[in-house]
Protein backbone atom coordinates (compact mmCIF):
# COMPACT_ATOMS: atom_id res chain seq x y z
CA UNK A 1 0.00 0.00 0.00
CA UNK A 2 1.39 3.38 -0.98
CA UNK A 3 1.30 6.00 1.70
CA UNK A 4 0.42 9.43 0.44
CA UNK A 5 1.83 12.47 2.18
CA UNK A 6 -1.73 13.24 3.20
CA UNK A 7 -1.93 10.04 5.13
CA UNK A 8 1.65 10.18 6.31
CA UNK A 9 1.33 13.52 8.04
CA UNK A 10 -2.05 12.58 9.43
CA UNK A 11 -2.12 12.26 13.18
CA UNK A 12 -4.67 9.46 13.30
CA UNK A 13 -3.61 6.06 14.50
CA UNK A 14 -5.44 4.25 11.74
CA UNK A 15 -2.32 2.55 10.47
CA UNK A 16 -1.81 0.83 13.79
CA UNK A 17 -5.32 -0.48 13.90
CA UNK A 18 -4.96 -1.87 10.39
CA UNK A 19 -1.76 -3.71 11.20
CA UNK A 20 -2.45 -5.18 14.58
CA UNK A 21 -0.13 -7.65 16.09
CA UNK A 22 -0.29 -10.38 18.62
CA UNK A 23 2.04 -10.67 21.56
CA UNK A 24 3.81 -7.38 20.98
CA UNK A 25 4.15 -4.88 23.76
CA UNK A 26 2.57 -1.59 22.75
CA UNK A 27 4.73 1.47 22.46
CA UNK A 28 2.90 3.20 25.25
CA UNK A 29 4.05 0.53 27.66
CA UNK A 30 7.67 1.15 26.82
CA UNK A 31 10.06 3.92 27.72
CA UNK A 32 9.36 5.90 24.61
CA UNK A 33 8.14 9.04 26.22
CA UNK A 34 8.01 10.01 29.82
CA UNK A 35 6.97 6.79 31.55
CA UNK A 36 9.29 4.17 32.98
CA UNK A 37 9.07 0.99 30.91
CA UNK A 38 7.56 -2.12 32.42
CA UNK A 39 9.34 -4.14 29.76
CA UNK A 40 12.80 -3.75 28.33
CA UNK A 41 11.76 -4.55 24.80
CA UNK A 42 12.06 -1.83 22.20
CA UNK A 43 9.77 -2.30 19.20
CA UNK A 44 11.75 -1.70 16.03
CA UNK A 45 11.49 -1.52 12.26
CA UNK A 46 14.21 -1.36 9.62
CA UNK A 47 14.35 0.95 6.60
CA UNK A 48 16.84 0.06 3.88
CA UNK A 49 17.54 -3.52 4.72
CA UNK A 50 20.15 -4.67 2.19
CA UNK A 51 23.95 -4.38 2.52
CA UNK A 52 24.71 -2.45 5.71
CA UNK A 53 21.03 -2.65 6.60
CA UNK A 54 21.31 -6.42 6.61
CA UNK A 55 24.05 -6.21 9.20
CA UNK A 56 22.12 -3.73 11.32
CA UNK A 57 19.00 -5.86 11.03
CA UNK A 58 20.94 -8.85 12.30
CA UNK A 59 22.43 -6.84 15.15
CA UNK A 60 19.09 -5.52 16.40
CA UNK A 61 17.26 -8.79 15.76
CA UNK A 62 19.81 -10.53 17.95
CA UNK A 63 19.01 -8.42 20.98
CA UNK A 64 16.68 -9.82 23.62
CA UNK A 65 15.41 -6.39 24.47
CA UNK A 66 14.32 -5.66 20.89
CA UNK A 67 11.10 -6.86 19.28
CA UNK A 68 11.56 -6.50 15.55
CA UNK A 69 8.27 -6.06 13.69
CA UNK A 70 8.67 -4.39 10.29
CA UNK A 71 11.00 -4.04 7.34
CA UNK A 72 11.04 -1.64 4.40
CA UNK A 73 13.11 -1.55 1.25
CA UNK A 74 12.82 -0.34 -2.33
CA UNK A 75 13.98 -3.83 -3.34
CA UNK A 76 11.46 -6.59 -2.78
CA UNK A 77 14.08 -9.30 -2.60
CA UNK A 78 16.00 -7.69 0.23
CA UNK A 79 12.79 -6.91 2.05
CA UNK A 80 11.37 -10.41 1.81
CA UNK A 81 14.67 -11.90 2.89
CA UNK A 82 14.67 -9.71 5.98
CA UNK A 83 11.08 -10.65 6.76
CA UNK A 84 11.92 -14.34 6.48
CA UNK A 85 14.88 -13.92 8.81
CA UNK A 86 12.79 -12.00 11.32
CA UNK A 87 9.93 -14.48 11.25
CA UNK A 88 12.37 -17.37 11.62
CA UNK A 89 13.86 -15.71 14.69
CA UNK A 90 10.48 -15.38 16.40
CA UNK A 91 8.83 -18.49 14.95
CA UNK A 92 5.87 -16.55 13.57
CA UNK A 93 4.78 -14.61 10.47
CA UNK A 94 4.31 -11.27 12.16
CA UNK A 95 7.00 -9.16 10.54
CA UNK A 96 5.32 -6.75 8.12
CA UNK A 97 6.86 -5.57 4.87
CA UNK A 98 6.52 -2.06 3.48
CA UNK A 99 7.62 -0.52 0.21
CA UNK A 100 7.22 2.96 1.70
CA UNK A 101 8.98 3.88 4.94
CA UNK A 102 6.19 6.28 5.87
CA UNK A 103 3.98 3.29 6.58
CA UNK A 104 6.44 2.22 9.28
CA UNK A 105 6.57 5.70 10.79
CA UNK A 106 2.77 5.86 10.89
CA UNK A 107 2.64 2.84 13.21
CA UNK A 108 2.21 4.01 16.75
CA UNK A 109 3.46 0.72 18.14
CA UNK A 110 6.98 1.18 16.78
CA UNK A 111 9.45 2.94 19.07
CA UNK A 112 12.56 3.10 16.95
CA UNK A 113 13.83 2.55 13.43
CA UNK A 114 17.19 1.86 11.93
CA UNK A 115 18.01 3.39 8.55
CA UNK A 116 20.56 2.09 6.09
CA UNK A 117 19.42 3.53 2.79
CA UNK A 118 21.74 5.36 0.41
CA UNK A 119 22.82 8.72 1.82
CA UNK A 120 20.41 10.89 -0.17
CA UNK A 121 17.55 9.54 1.93
CA UNK A 122 19.06 9.94 5.39
CA UNK A 123 17.98 13.49 6.22
CA UNK A 124 14.44 13.00 4.96
CA UNK A 125 13.99 9.79 6.90
CA UNK A 126 15.62 10.95 10.13
CA UNK A 127 13.57 14.14 10.20
CA UNK A 128 10.33 12.34 9.34
CA UNK A 129 11.08 9.73 12.00
CA UNK A 130 11.60 12.38 14.68
CA UNK A 131 8.38 14.14 13.69
CA UNK A 132 6.63 10.83 14.28
CA UNK A 133 8.24 10.33 17.65
CA UNK A 134 10.65 7.55 16.68
CA UNK A 135 14.17 7.12 17.94
CA UNK A 136 16.64 6.52 15.13
CA UNK A 137 19.82 4.60 14.41
CA UNK A 138 21.12 5.74 11.01
CA UNK A 139 24.09 4.38 9.13
CA UNK A 140 26.89 6.75 8.29
CA UNK A 141 27.42 9.07 6.50
CA UNK A 142 24.47 10.66 8.22
CA UNK A 143 24.30 13.73 5.99
CA UNK A 144 24.76 14.38 2.28
CA UNK A 145 24.94 18.17 2.56
CA UNK A 146 25.86 20.76 5.18
CA UNK A 147 22.37 22.20 5.22
CA UNK A 148 20.49 19.04 5.99
CA UNK A 149 22.88 18.25 8.84
CA UNK A 150 21.77 21.15 10.98
CA UNK A 151 18.11 20.39 10.23
CA UNK A 152 18.58 16.83 11.48
CA UNK A 153 20.20 18.04 14.69
CA UNK A 154 17.47 20.60 15.30
CA UNK A 155 14.66 18.12 14.67
CA UNK A 156 16.13 15.44 16.94
CA UNK A 157 16.49 18.01 19.71
CA UNK A 158 13.02 19.42 19.07
CA UNK A 159 11.29 16.09 19.62
CA UNK A 160 13.61 14.82 22.33
CA UNK A 161 14.62 11.84 20.21
CA UNK A 162 17.58 9.55 20.62
CA UNK A 163 19.29 9.66 17.25
CA UNK A 164 22.51 7.74 16.77
CA UNK A 165 24.81 7.70 13.81
CA UNK A 166 26.12 4.37 12.66
CA UNK A 167 29.91 4.42 12.40
CA UNK A 168 31.16 1.60 14.59
CA UNK A 169 34.73 2.32 13.46
CA UNK A 170 34.96 5.71 15.18
CA UNK A 171 35.42 3.99 18.53
CA UNK A 172 36.82 0.67 17.39
CA UNK A 173 39.37 1.37 14.65
CA UNK A 174 41.57 4.06 16.14
CA UNK A 175 41.85 2.91 19.74
CA UNK A 176 45.61 3.40 20.02
CA UNK A 177 45.52 6.95 18.72
CA UNK A 178 42.42 7.86 20.69
CA UNK A 179 43.84 6.47 23.92
CA UNK A 180 47.11 8.37 23.64
CA UNK A 181 45.27 11.58 22.78
CA UNK A 182 42.88 11.22 25.70
CA UNK A 183 45.26 9.86 28.34
CA UNK A 184 47.58 12.81 27.86
CA UNK A 185 50.63 10.89 26.63
CA UNK A 186 50.60 12.78 23.32
CA UNK A 187 50.74 16.02 25.26
CA UNK A 188 49.36 19.13 23.59
CA UNK A 189 47.70 18.19 20.33
CA UNK A 190 47.88 20.50 17.35
CA UNK A 191 46.62 18.51 14.41
CA UNK A 192 45.53 15.22 12.94
CA UNK A 193 45.65 14.10 9.32
CA UNK A 194 43.08 12.06 7.43
CA UNK A 195 43.84 10.46 4.09
CA UNK A 196 40.68 9.47 2.27
CA UNK A 197 38.87 9.89 -1.03
CA UNK A 198 37.81 10.26 -3.76
CA UNK A 199 35.03 12.84 -3.94
CA UNK A 200 31.88 11.73 -5.70
CA UNK A 201 31.42 12.41 -9.40
CA UNK A 202 28.59 13.39 -11.77
CA UNK A 203 26.65 10.37 -13.00
CA UNK A 204 25.35 10.04 -16.53
CA UNK A 205 25.07 6.28 -16.86
CA UNK A 206 22.89 4.94 -19.70
CA UNK A 207 19.40 3.57 -19.12
CA UNK A 208 19.04 -0.16 -18.52
CA UNK A 209 15.99 -2.35 -18.27
CA UNK A 210 14.56 -1.92 -14.82
CA UNK A 211 14.10 -5.17 -12.90
CA UNK A 212 10.69 -5.83 -11.32
CA UNK A 213 12.43 -6.19 -7.97
CA UNK A 214 13.06 -2.48 -7.47
CA UNK A 215 10.72 0.48 -6.89
CA UNK A 216 12.82 3.00 -8.81
CA UNK A 217 10.84 6.09 -7.81
CA UNK A 218 11.31 5.24 -4.14
CA UNK A 219 14.96 4.40 -4.63
CA UNK A 220 15.55 7.86 -6.15
CA UNK A 221 13.31 9.65 -3.66
CA UNK A 222 14.44 13.25 -3.20
CA UNK A 223 17.39 12.85 -5.61
CA UNK A 224 17.15 14.13 -9.19
CA UNK A 225 15.36 11.80 -11.58
CA UNK A 226 17.63 9.56 -13.65
CA UNK A 227 17.07 6.37 -15.58
CA UNK A 228 17.62 3.03 -13.89
CA UNK A 229 21.14 1.66 -14.16
CA UNK A 230 22.40 -1.20 -12.03
CA UNK A 231 25.65 0.61 -11.21
CA UNK A 232 23.80 3.75 -10.24
CA UNK A 233 22.01 1.92 -7.45
CA UNK A 234 24.45 -0.86 -6.60
CA UNK A 235 25.26 -1.05 -2.92
CA UNK A 236 28.83 -2.10 -3.66
CA UNK A 237 31.36 -0.40 -1.41
CA UNK A 238 33.29 0.78 -4.44
CA UNK A 239 33.56 4.51 -5.00
CA UNK A 240 35.06 4.28 -8.47
CA UNK A 241 31.89 4.23 -10.55
CA UNK A 242 30.31 0.88 -9.77
CA UNK A 243 27.95 1.96 -7.02
CA UNK A 244 25.77 4.80 -5.76
CA UNK A 245 28.63 5.66 -3.42
CA UNK A 246 30.49 7.00 -6.45
CA UNK A 247 27.97 9.63 -7.45
CA UNK A 248 27.17 13.16 -6.34
CA UNK A 249 23.39 12.80 -6.19
CA UNK A 250 23.57 9.99 -3.65
CA UNK A 251 26.90 10.24 -1.87
CA UNK A 252 29.97 12.33 -1.16
CA UNK A 253 32.12 9.45 -2.48
CA UNK A 254 34.94 7.96 -0.44
CA UNK A 255 35.40 11.41 1.05
CA UNK A 256 32.24 10.96 3.13
CA UNK A 257 31.73 7.19 2.94
CA UNK A 258 34.99 6.02 4.49
CA UNK A 259 35.46 9.65 5.47
CA UNK A 260 32.65 9.32 8.01
CA UNK A 261 34.77 6.74 9.84
CA UNK A 262 38.09 8.52 9.48
CA UNK A 263 36.90 12.07 10.16
CA UNK A 264 34.69 10.70 12.91
CA UNK A 265 37.74 9.00 14.43
CA UNK A 266 39.85 12.11 13.99
CA UNK A 267 37.33 14.48 15.59
CA UNK A 268 36.95 11.98 18.44
CA UNK A 269 40.69 11.54 18.95
CA UNK A 270 41.41 15.25 19.15
CA UNK A 271 38.13 15.89 20.96
CA UNK A 272 36.44 18.42 18.69
CA UNK A 273 33.18 16.50 18.36
CA UNK A 274 31.22 19.44 19.73
CA UNK A 275 32.71 21.88 17.25
CA UNK A 276 32.83 22.55 13.55
CA UNK A 277 35.85 24.07 11.77
CA UNK A 278 35.77 27.81 11.11
CA UNK A 279 38.45 27.97 8.44
CA UNK A 280 38.99 25.75 5.44
CA UNK A 281 42.36 26.44 3.88
CA UNK A 282 43.11 25.04 0.45
CA UNK A 283 46.82 24.55 0.04
CA UNK A 284 49.28 22.82 -2.26
CA UNK A 285 52.44 20.84 -1.61
CA UNK A 286 54.52 18.85 -4.07
CA UNK A 287 51.95 19.63 -6.74
CA UNK A 288 49.12 18.08 -4.70
CA UNK A 289 46.22 20.00 -3.29
CA UNK A 290 45.16 19.43 0.29
CA UNK A 291 42.91 21.08 2.81
CA UNK A 292 43.48 22.19 6.40
CA UNK A 293 40.37 22.63 8.53
CA UNK A 294 41.01 24.88 11.49
CA UNK A 295 39.01 25.02 14.71
CA UNK A 296 38.54 27.97 17.03
CA UNK A 297 40.51 26.12 19.76
CA UNK A 298 43.60 25.92 17.57
CA UNK A 299 43.22 22.28 16.51
CA UNK A 300 43.67 21.55 12.81
CA UNK A 301 42.47 18.57 10.79
CA UNK A 302 44.29 18.15 7.53
CA UNK A 303 43.01 16.15 4.60
CA UNK A 304 45.39 14.27 2.32
CA UNK A 305 48.38 16.34 3.41
CA UNK A 306 51.30 15.10 1.32
CA UNK A 307 53.86 13.11 3.28
CA UNK A 308 51.70 12.79 6.38
CA UNK A 309 50.34 9.42 7.46
CA UNK A 310 46.79 8.38 8.14
CA UNK A 311 45.60 9.63 11.56
CA UNK A 312 49.01 11.09 12.29
CA UNK A 313 48.70 13.37 15.31
CA UNK A 314 50.75 16.56 15.54
CA UNK A 315 51.70 16.96 19.23
CA UNK A 316 54.43 18.03 21.62
CA UNK A 317 54.72 14.69 23.49
CA UNK A 318 54.85 16.45 26.85
CA UNK A 319 52.70 14.35 29.20
CA UNK A 320 49.70 16.19 30.49
CA UNK A 321 46.65 15.29 32.52
CA UNK A 322 44.46 12.72 30.88
CA UNK A 323 40.74 12.26 30.73
CA UNK A 324 38.50 9.21 30.57
CA UNK A 325 37.82 7.89 27.08
CA UNK A 326 34.07 7.79 26.30
CA UNK A 327 32.70 4.35 25.54
CA UNK A 328 29.48 2.67 24.45
CA UNK A 329 26.63 2.28 26.90
CA UNK A 330 25.02 -1.13 27.32
CA UNK A 331 26.41 -4.15 25.54
CA UNK A 332 26.70 -5.21 21.93
CA UNK A 333 28.71 -2.43 20.34
CA UNK A 334 27.20 0.62 18.73
CA UNK A 335 23.77 -0.97 18.23
CA UNK A 336 23.72 -1.91 21.92
CA UNK A 337 24.72 1.64 22.78
CA UNK A 338 21.70 2.89 20.85
CA UNK A 339 19.26 0.51 22.51
CA UNK A 340 20.59 1.36 25.96
CA UNK A 341 20.16 5.06 25.21
CA UNK A 342 16.61 4.54 23.95
CA UNK A 343 15.87 3.18 27.40
CA UNK A 344 17.83 5.71 29.45
CA UNK A 345 17.28 8.69 27.12
CA UNK A 346 20.99 9.42 27.37
CA UNK A 347 23.02 10.63 24.41
CA UNK A 348 24.46 7.76 22.36
CA UNK A 349 28.16 7.56 21.56
CA UNK A 350 27.65 8.86 18.01
CA UNK A 351 24.88 11.26 18.92
CA UNK A 352 23.54 13.07 15.89
CA UNK A 353 25.21 16.32 17.00
CA UNK A 354 28.61 14.64 17.00
CA UNK A 355 27.89 12.82 13.75
CA UNK A 356 26.89 16.01 11.96
CA UNK A 357 29.82 17.98 13.35
CA UNK A 358 32.24 15.34 12.10
CA UNK A 359 30.46 15.12 8.73
CA UNK A 360 30.81 18.88 8.36
CA UNK A 361 34.56 18.30 7.94
CA UNK A 362 34.41 16.38 4.63
CA UNK A 363 31.50 18.50 3.39
CA UNK A 364 33.47 21.71 3.96
CA UNK A 365 36.61 20.25 2.43
CA UNK A 366 34.65 19.08 -0.61
CA UNK A 367 33.23 22.56 -1.24
CA UNK A 368 36.71 24.09 -0.94
CA UNK A 369 38.11 21.58 -3.45
CA UNK A 370 35.18 22.12 -5.82
CA UNK A 371 35.45 25.89 -5.74
CA UNK A 372 39.24 25.70 -5.66
CA UNK A 373 39.60 28.23 -2.89
CA UNK A 374 39.84 28.66 0.85
CA UNK A 375 36.67 29.36 2.83
CA UNK A 376 35.54 30.64 6.19
CA UNK A 377 32.65 28.90 7.92
CA UNK A 378 30.40 30.45 10.56
CA UNK A 379 29.13 27.36 12.35
CA UNK A 380 26.71 29.34 14.53
CA UNK A 381 24.98 30.76 11.48
CA UNK A 382 25.68 27.65 9.39
CA UNK A 383 26.87 29.76 6.51
CA UNK A 384 30.10 30.75 4.83
CA UNK A 385 31.59 34.14 5.62
CA UNK A 386 31.17 36.60 2.75
CA UNK A 387 30.91 33.83 0.17
CA UNK A 388 27.42 33.64 -1.31
CA UNK A 389 28.63 31.25 -3.98
CA UNK A 390 29.86 28.70 -1.46
CA UNK A 391 26.61 29.14 0.45
CA UNK A 392 24.77 27.86 -2.60
CA UNK A 393 26.48 24.51 -2.20
CA UNK A 394 25.18 23.96 1.33
CA UNK A 395 21.84 22.64 0.10
CA UNK A 396 20.11 20.98 -2.80
CA UNK A 397 16.51 21.23 -3.90
CA UNK A 398 14.57 18.04 -3.21
CA UNK A 399 12.71 16.36 -6.01
CA UNK A 400 9.00 16.87 -5.56
CA UNK A 401 7.09 15.94 -3.50
CA UNK A 402 9.87 15.42 -0.91
CA UNK A 403 10.34 18.20 1.61
CA UNK A 404 12.01 18.50 5.01
Amino acid sequence: MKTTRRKFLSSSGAATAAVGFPSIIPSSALGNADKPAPSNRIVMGGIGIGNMGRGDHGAFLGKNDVQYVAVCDARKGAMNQAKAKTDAKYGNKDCKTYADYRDILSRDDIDAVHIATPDHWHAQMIIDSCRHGKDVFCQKPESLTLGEGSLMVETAKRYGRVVSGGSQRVLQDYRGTVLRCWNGSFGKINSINVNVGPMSQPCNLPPENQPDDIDWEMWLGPAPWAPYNSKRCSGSYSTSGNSWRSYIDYSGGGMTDWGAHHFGGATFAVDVRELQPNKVVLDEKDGKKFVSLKYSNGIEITHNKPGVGQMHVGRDNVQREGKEVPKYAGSGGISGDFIDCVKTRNKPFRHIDYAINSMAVPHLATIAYKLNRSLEWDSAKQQFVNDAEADRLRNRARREPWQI
Partner: protein
Amino acid sequence: MLDQAFEALKTYKWGVDPKAIKAIQDAVVATHGDTASRKELESKLAAVLATDVPRAAKDSVCRFLKTIGTAHSVEALAKLLHDAELSHMARHALQTNNAPEAVKALVGAIEKAPKKIKIGIISSLGARGTDVPIAPLAKALEDKDPEISNAGALALGAIGSSEAVKALAGAKATDENKIAVCDAMFQCAENMLNHGKKSEAKAIYSTVLKIGPTKAAKIAADLGVKACA
Protein backbone atom coordinates in the same frame (compact mmCIF):
# COMPACT_ATOMS: atom_id res chain seq x y z
CA MET B 1 37.72 23.13 -24.77
CA LEU B 2 34.77 25.19 -23.54
CA ASP B 3 33.34 25.49 -27.03
CA GLN B 4 33.67 21.74 -27.49
CA ALA B 5 31.86 21.16 -24.22
CA PHE B 6 28.96 23.36 -25.30
CA GLU B 7 28.91 21.50 -28.60
CA ALA B 8 28.79 18.23 -26.65
CA LEU B 9 25.70 19.40 -24.79
CA LYS B 10 23.72 19.15 -28.04
CA THR B 11 23.98 15.37 -27.93
CA TYR B 12 24.49 14.87 -24.22
CA LYS B 13 22.12 11.98 -23.61
CA TRP B 14 22.17 9.52 -20.72
CA GLY B 15 25.21 7.35 -21.26
CA VAL B 16 27.59 10.01 -22.58
CA ASP B 17 30.76 10.34 -20.50
CA PRO B 18 30.43 13.43 -18.24
CA LYS B 19 34.01 14.31 -19.17
CA ALA B 20 32.53 15.63 -22.43
CA ILE B 21 31.12 18.64 -20.58
CA LYS B 22 33.64 18.92 -17.75
CA ALA B 23 35.15 22.07 -19.29
CA ILE B 24 31.95 23.90 -18.38
CA GLN B 25 32.33 23.00 -14.72
CA ASP B 26 35.96 24.09 -14.93
CA ALA B 27 34.81 27.41 -16.37
CA VAL B 28 32.30 27.82 -13.55
CA VAL B 29 35.17 27.64 -11.09
CA ALA B 30 37.70 29.58 -13.15
CA THR B 31 35.42 32.58 -13.73
CA HIS B 32 34.91 33.24 -10.02
CA GLY B 33 35.34 36.97 -9.49
CA ASP B 34 35.34 37.72 -13.23
CA THR B 35 31.94 39.31 -13.75
CA ALA B 36 32.16 39.66 -17.49
CA SER B 37 33.24 36.06 -18.10
CA ARG B 38 30.63 34.81 -15.68
CA LYS B 39 27.89 36.71 -17.46
CA GLU B 40 29.00 35.36 -20.80
CA LEU B 41 29.05 31.82 -19.44
CA GLU B 42 25.65 32.25 -17.80
CA SER B 43 24.17 33.61 -21.03
CA LYS B 44 25.45 30.66 -23.02
CA LEU B 45 24.07 28.21 -20.48
CA ALA B 46 20.69 29.94 -20.32
CA ALA B 47 20.49 29.86 -24.11
CA VAL B 48 20.94 26.09 -24.09
CA LEU B 49 17.81 25.70 -21.99
CA ALA B 50 15.73 27.17 -24.81
CA THR B 51 16.96 24.59 -27.33
CA ASP B 52 15.93 20.98 -27.86
CA VAL B 53 19.05 19.41 -26.35
CA PRO B 54 18.48 16.14 -24.45
CA ARG B 55 17.13 16.12 -20.90
CA ALA B 56 20.49 15.09 -19.46
CA ALA B 57 22.04 18.19 -21.02
CA LYS B 58 19.43 20.52 -19.52
CA ASP B 59 19.82 18.79 -16.15
CA SER B 60 23.54 19.52 -16.27
CA VAL B 61 23.02 23.12 -17.32
CA CYS B 62 20.77 23.64 -14.31
CA ARG B 63 23.49 22.20 -12.10
CA PHE B 64 26.01 24.69 -13.47
CA LEU B 65 23.55 27.56 -13.04
CA LYS B 66 23.01 26.55 -9.42
CA THR B 67 26.48 27.93 -8.71
CA ILE B 68 26.61 30.95 -11.01
CA GLY B 69 23.01 31.90 -11.77
CA THR B 70 21.93 35.54 -11.42
CA ALA B 71 18.84 37.45 -12.50
CA HIS B 72 20.15 36.98 -16.01
CA SER B 73 19.24 33.27 -16.21
CA VAL B 74 16.01 33.38 -14.22
CA GLU B 75 13.71 33.75 -17.20
CA ALA B 76 15.15 30.70 -18.96
CA LEU B 77 14.86 28.61 -15.80
CA ALA B 78 11.38 29.88 -15.00
CA LYS B 79 10.13 28.51 -18.30
CA LEU B 80 10.99 25.03 -17.10
CA LEU B 81 9.13 25.22 -13.80
CA HIS B 82 5.95 23.68 -15.20
CA ASP B 83 7.84 21.00 -17.11
CA ALA B 84 7.28 17.70 -15.30
CA GLU B 85 10.71 16.44 -16.31
CA LEU B 86 12.73 19.56 -15.68
CA SER B 87 10.94 21.43 -12.90
CA HIS B 88 13.07 19.93 -10.15
CA MET B 89 16.36 20.82 -11.77
CA ALA B 90 15.10 24.32 -12.58
CA ARG B 91 14.36 24.68 -8.87
CA HIS B 92 17.79 23.24 -8.13
CA ALA B 93 19.20 26.35 -9.82
CA LEU B 94 16.58 28.87 -8.70
CA GLN B 95 16.41 27.85 -5.04
CA THR B 96 19.89 29.21 -4.37
CA ASN B 97 19.86 32.07 -6.88
CA ASN B 98 20.19 35.26 -4.80
CA ALA B 99 18.32 37.49 -7.24
CA PRO B 100 14.86 38.70 -6.16
CA GLU B 101 13.78 37.73 -9.67
CA ALA B 102 14.26 34.08 -8.69
CA VAL B 103 11.74 34.42 -5.86
CA LYS B 104 9.36 36.22 -8.20
CA ALA B 105 9.65 33.41 -10.74
CA LEU B 106 8.98 30.71 -8.14
CA VAL B 107 6.03 32.57 -6.64
CA GLY B 108 4.65 33.30 -10.10
CA ALA B 109 4.74 29.64 -11.02
CA ILE B 110 2.76 28.37 -8.01
CA GLU B 111 -0.77 29.16 -9.08
CA LYS B 112 -0.85 27.25 -12.36
CA ALA B 113 1.46 24.44 -11.35
CA PRO B 114 0.14 20.89 -11.15
CA LYS B 115 -0.04 19.59 -7.59
CA LYS B 116 3.26 17.74 -7.38
CA ILE B 117 5.22 20.56 -8.98
CA LYS B 118 3.42 23.08 -6.78
CA ILE B 119 4.62 21.23 -3.71
CA GLY B 120 8.17 21.37 -5.04
CA ILE B 121 8.02 25.10 -5.68
CA ILE B 122 6.57 25.77 -2.23
CA SER B 123 9.34 23.64 -0.75
CA SER B 124 12.02 25.64 -2.58
CA LEU B 125 10.56 28.93 -1.38
CA GLY B 126 10.67 27.65 2.17
CA ALA B 127 14.24 26.46 1.72
CA ARG B 128 15.29 29.98 0.71
CA GLY B 129 14.31 31.06 4.20
CA THR B 130 14.43 34.82 3.76
CA ASP B 131 13.01 37.47 1.45
CA VAL B 132 10.09 35.24 0.52
CA PRO B 133 6.53 36.61 0.58
CA ILE B 134 4.38 34.86 3.15
CA ALA B 135 1.03 35.27 1.39
CA PRO B 136 1.42 32.52 -1.24
CA LEU B 137 2.65 30.09 1.39
CA ALA B 138 -0.20 31.01 3.72
CA LYS B 139 -2.56 30.39 0.81
CA ALA B 140 -1.00 26.98 0.27
CA LEU B 141 -1.42 26.24 3.97
CA GLU B 142 -5.13 26.87 3.62
CA ASP B 143 -5.43 24.66 0.54
CA LYS B 144 -8.05 21.93 0.75
CA ASP B 145 -5.52 19.42 -0.49
CA PRO B 146 -3.68 18.24 2.64
CA GLU B 147 -0.41 17.60 0.78
CA ILE B 148 -0.31 21.18 -0.44
CA SER B 149 -1.34 22.40 3.00
CA ASN B 150 1.48 20.39 4.58
CA ALA B 151 3.97 21.82 2.09
CA GLY B 152 2.82 25.35 2.89
CA ALA B 153 3.10 24.70 6.62
CA LEU B 154 6.63 23.33 6.41
CA ALA B 155 7.74 26.19 4.17
CA LEU B 156 6.35 28.72 6.64
CA GLY B 157 8.15 26.90 9.44
CA ALA B 158 11.42 27.04 7.53
CA ILE B 159 10.99 30.80 7.20
CA GLY B 160 10.06 31.12 10.86
CA SER B 161 9.16 34.81 10.91
CA SER B 162 6.47 36.52 12.99
CA GLU B 163 4.37 36.77 9.85
CA ALA B 164 4.76 33.02 9.31
CA VAL B 165 3.66 32.39 12.90
CA LYS B 166 0.57 34.51 12.31
CA ALA B 167 -0.38 32.46 9.27
CA LEU B 168 0.21 29.17 11.06
CA ALA B 169 -1.64 30.18 14.21
CA GLY B 170 -4.60 31.24 12.13
CA ALA B 171 -4.74 28.01 10.17
CA LYS B 172 -7.20 25.27 10.86
CA ALA B 173 -5.22 22.33 12.18
CA THR B 174 -6.71 19.05 11.08
CA ASP B 175 -5.71 15.45 11.60
CA GLU B 176 -4.23 15.59 8.13
CA ASN B 177 -1.97 18.61 8.52
CA LYS B 178 -1.38 18.67 12.26
CA ILE B 179 2.09 17.12 12.25
CA ALA B 180 3.35 19.61 9.68
CA VAL B 181 1.62 22.60 11.28
CA CYS B 182 2.99 21.75 14.73
CA ASP B 183 6.48 21.19 13.37
CA ALA B 184 6.32 24.51 11.52
CA MET B 185 5.24 26.28 14.68
CA PHE B 186 8.09 24.68 16.59
CA GLN B 187 10.54 25.96 14.00
CA CYS B 188 9.09 29.45 14.37
CA ALA B 189 9.30 29.22 18.15
CA GLU B 190 12.94 28.13 17.95
CA ASN B 191 13.64 31.07 15.69
CA MET B 192 12.07 33.37 18.27
CA LEU B 193 14.13 31.77 21.04
CA ASN B 194 17.30 32.21 19.01
CA HIS B 195 16.49 35.90 18.85
CA GLY B 196 15.85 36.13 22.59
CA LYS B 197 12.08 36.41 22.20
CA LYS B 198 11.10 33.98 24.95
CA SER B 199 7.56 35.22 25.52
CA GLU B 200 6.73 35.00 21.81
CA ALA B 201 8.17 31.49 21.70
CA LYS B 202 6.25 30.43 24.77
CA ALA B 203 3.03 31.73 23.22
CA ILE B 204 3.65 29.55 20.18
CA TYR B 205 4.21 26.44 22.28
CA SER B 206 1.03 27.22 24.21
CA THR B 207 -0.87 27.49 20.94
CA VAL B 208 0.41 24.09 19.86
CA LEU B 209 -0.67 22.52 23.13
CA LYS B 210 -4.16 23.92 22.64
CA ILE B 211 -4.66 22.38 19.19
CA GLY B 212 -4.34 18.84 20.43
CA PRO B 213 -0.92 17.80 19.22
CA THR B 214 0.24 14.28 18.51
CA LYS B 215 2.14 12.46 21.23
CA ALA B 216 5.45 13.38 19.60
CA ALA B 217 4.43 17.02 19.21
CA LYS B 218 3.22 17.16 22.82
CA ILE B 219 6.69 16.06 23.97
CA ALA B 220 8.24 18.70 21.71
CA ALA B 221 5.91 21.41 23.00
CA ASP B 222 6.67 20.52 26.59
CA LEU B 223 10.40 20.64 25.85
CA GLY B 224 9.88 23.99 24.19
CA VAL B 225 8.03 25.42 27.16
CA LYS B 226 10.91 24.33 29.40
CA ALA B 227 13.39 26.03 27.08
CA CYS B 228 11.43 29.25 27.48
CA ALA B 229 11.68 29.21 31.28
